[in-house]
């Protein structure tokens, strides 16, 4: 489905992403974890094309998309959410989803898609609400509904659960876990919340200073001494 090969992105002297390779299979949920500043968000922007790679390549659905514009990647079946809350603030919640459905809904009626995606994330009932009137969790869920409205076959979620805990986090975990089966869609899940990634992902990729330092099933990665030092060690401090 997705193949990143030696992806690099430098900002001046900072090697934000430094030769990252991994794959995401069909209907798989792969997690990318790593400390703050390890290059996770930059990686998402490279995969989506919002940021231009300094080197390496991205293949999606058997096609080299490294030089393909982001909006075209959407039409090929990729979608993303942002770490920061990004929504269209001048229109209501439903219109946010309809807008995405209109662009890349692949023939499905945009209104139908919007209803469907809002229901999927559990936001049926907010229809005409202004984005500013939503709670933080509702905004984060709405972002996922917007991403799913283009009927992607791969969605990149950049810290979707940021700022949520307890019951709200459970709700978010439930939505993400249902994506592959119910939306026929792979997930690349960026987060540094252990409860989230451990509970949801089949495979993990661990980044540190822009490099992959470990990858594999969550249980294995958790035991890796380099990961304990770079990630859990850093978090324990």
């Amino acid at each position: 489905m997705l193949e990143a090969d030696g992806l690099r992105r430098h900002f001046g002297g900072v090697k934000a992403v430094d030769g990252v390779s991994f794959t995401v299979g069909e209907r798989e949920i792969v997690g990318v974890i790593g400390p703050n500043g390890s290059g996770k968000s930059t990686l998402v922007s490279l995969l989506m094309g919002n940021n231009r790679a300094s080197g390496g390549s991205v293949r999606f659905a058997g096609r080299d998309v490294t030089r393909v514009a982001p909006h075209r990647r959407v039409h090929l079946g990729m979608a993303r959410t942002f770490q920061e809350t990004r929504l269209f603030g001048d229109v209501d919640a439903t219109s946010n989803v309809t807008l995405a459905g209109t662009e890349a809904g692949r023939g499905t009626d945009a209104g139908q898609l919007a209803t469907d995606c809002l229901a999927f994330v559990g936001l049926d009932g907010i229809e005409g609400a202004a984005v500013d009137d939503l709670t933080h969790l509702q905004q984060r869920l709405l972002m996922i509904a917007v991403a799913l409205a283009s009927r992607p076959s791969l969605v990149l979620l950049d810290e979707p659960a940021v700022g949520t805990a307890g019951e709200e986090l459970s709700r978010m975990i439930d939505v993400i876990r249902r994506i592959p089966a119910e939306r026929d869609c792979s997930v690349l899940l960026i987060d540094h919340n252990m409860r989230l990634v451990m509970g949801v992902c089949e495979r993990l990729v661990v980044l540190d200073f822009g490099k992959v330092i470990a990858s594999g099933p969550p249980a294995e990665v958790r035991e890796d001494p380099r990961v304990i030092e770079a990630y859990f060690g850093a978090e324990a401090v």
Partner: protein
Amino acid sequence: MRPNLSLLVPSAVLLALAVYALTGADPYLLSVLSTVLIYAVATSGLNLLAGFGGYPNLSQATFMGVGAYAGAYAVNTLHWGFWAVMVVGPLAAAAVGAVVAVPLLRLQGQYFAIATLLLGVVFTTVMQNEESLGGSLGIGGFTRPFTDSTGWFLFLLAIQAVLTGLTAWIAGRPLGRHLDALRQDESLSESIGIPVRRRKFEAFVLGSAVGGLAGVLLANNSFYVAPDLFNFFESFLVFVALIVGGPGTVAGPLLGAAFLIGLPEAFRFAQEARYLFMGVAFVLVMGLAPDGIVGAASRLTQRSRRRSPRPATIREPSREAVAVGPGQGDDHA
């Protein structure tokens, strides 16, 4: 759905102007109104990228200048007639727009604003030194078929009517929808499949062409052009007109142009100080109507239409709906 795309108000205004012109208008007022219409054309062009797209474009007078001077060249050197000039002006402005759009549209916010402003400085400097086109004194030679002021006014009115309809049409097309989206968030827009770069380019080039049309009209209105008519201060004023009238609305350019041209006329007695009055009026309008005259008007009419501004219960029931599960959120209706 944006409430400010109605054709009702601008159609009524344009119709009233037509009736006024046909029923023996005051010649002085008619000439002022002609200028209003020409600047409404310029502002309509600016409305695409700056209004719908939210880009602070401070070069609209420059493109008026490109159109006007292309017309001057066509008239004086090539001896072309009015209709050919009407075509060549917008085309020249579109061509220049297409070339400068590529580097300019890499910029955003204040950097875009400054770069477009500098474009105007470059243009006026070049024209001041281009002796074959009159240098800083300017150049004439324009002739037009609409020799009486009523006919000319109706011609301008027809052009603005077409542009008003075009604006309403574009607003409902992908171009308008995409500009509206990218104004709110460019990264999010491209991430839901919107061709952001292409839309900005189209808006800039189309807006420049309409600016060029306004320039040709201005040249034929006064039979004369000079570099100072198109300096960066003029670009700034056209931008102010859009902001005052209502960016991203159908009626905004016409109302804004009336403000831009009408107010200095009203404060003519104050001579140079009239820009001071304009500044004060601008601050007043922006204080009362931060989204322009059209925005304020539509907010007033909406308030009277729906009694309660917003269901106050939305936050709480929705929170429950999220916690409990789907299908529970409609109990607050």
